[in-house]
């Protein structure tokens, strides 16, 4: 079942960057990349560090604590120390706003 929630205005996220978004007791990371907007769980799967201070490198998010890397679109864990994929969520843009399907 789809549950689309309005998360933020698209221009709140700089190009090649991310913001933290908290909703209903869950925390997410919202990304603006060269290939569009994406949403993932907010916490790194290695040690639950929030990704909000991480560095976006193209389509990759790097965790700020140990520099483990995930593919932003697929959530796939790309390099140690992360080895568990990140959960991703469908995103759509409507009227200049980012909507996330939190399921």
């Amino acid at each position, binding site marked *: 079942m789809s549950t689309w929630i309005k998360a933020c205005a698209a221009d709140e996220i*700089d190009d090649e*960057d991310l913001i933290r978004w908290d909703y209903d007791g869950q925390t997410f990371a919202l990304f603006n990349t060269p290939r569009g907007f994406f949403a993932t769980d907010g*916490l790194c799967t*290695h*040690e*639950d*560090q929030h990704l909000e*201070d*991480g*560095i976006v*490198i193209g389509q990759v998010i*790097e965790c*700020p*604590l*140990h*520099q483990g*890397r995930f593919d932003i679109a697929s959530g796939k864990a*790309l*390099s*140690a*120390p992360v*080895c*568990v994929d990140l959960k991703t969520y469908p995103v759509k843009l409507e009227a200049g706003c980012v909507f996330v399907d939190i399921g």
Partner: protein
Amino acid sequence: MTPAPIATNAASSGVKLERKTLRQLGKRSDVPGLIWLAHWVVFLLGGGVLLHLSVGTWWVVPAMIAYGAVLVVPTYALSHETSHGTAFRTRWLNDALLWISSFIYFEEPNHRRYAHTSHHTYTMHVGKDGQMPFALPMTFREWLVELTHLGFYWYEIKLFVKNALGRFSPLVLQYTPEDELPKLKWGARVYLAAYATLLAFIAAGHVWPLLYLVLPRLVGAPVMQMFTILQHAELSEDTPSILDSTRSYKGGWLSWFLYMNMNNHVEHHLYPQVPFYALPGLQKAIEDQVPEPDPGFWRTNYEVAAVVARRSLGLSTRAPSIRQAPHMITEGGFTKISEANMR
């Protein structure tokens, strides 16, 4: 979900930096790393030529020390920076140089990465930080073992054999995800095979690996250790604040070249996502929130050495100018806090 560990970093230390500044400082590029690498290659070649010319004379002693320092200190720095994945933007370049530099440094790269994650999550937390190479507080004997790197060689030999056999220590199991253990096992096997090949090569009468790799690695180690001992010596254990557990000291071009700016060690632990070439910029950006860096390399080393010697002699351990945790300063005698976990 596993409860989140309270990582020792900027947030746990009360240090703040505007997102835009952090993003700018964390930006990745291959250029600064390649410029650094070119310097290293030139100095290694130059030092190697001088060492070659000095063989058979007494000049071989200073030539070996100089070449050893130029080989080993940057090897440590590169192995550390590439284990973070921050030396270069290009991932394969990071990984290739991680494996090469870690081979000289004498640590299997997968293990190096995981042990170092625990050092960042639990900086100087007894029983949790997997990289506490000396007992606390440090005595003169501990300082000597650390300076010569003898404790490290012994620890790594045991680790290589145990990991290659799949007999992981409780400490290794503590910081390595179970799914990643096979990587540690195979990495240790590959490195042991490579070291055995190197030894066989030397035993067969080829002197150059001994002259340009093994002996300089041993001779250069104390110079490397003079850089690394300063990172946390005489500071606090079991504190969430990097400002209390970690030391920065003043440095210039030599610190950039030999140590990849890791004299800015407080800044590195606060924001490990910032690459080495941006650490001086980070230092400037947060200088009003962090302690004044200790004096330069020589002065800070002298004071640490003097403090540990006085501790072993039962004298006052108050240093003239470097930062010390209050409980490290006594007027004679000390209570042991913890043993080294890399022995």
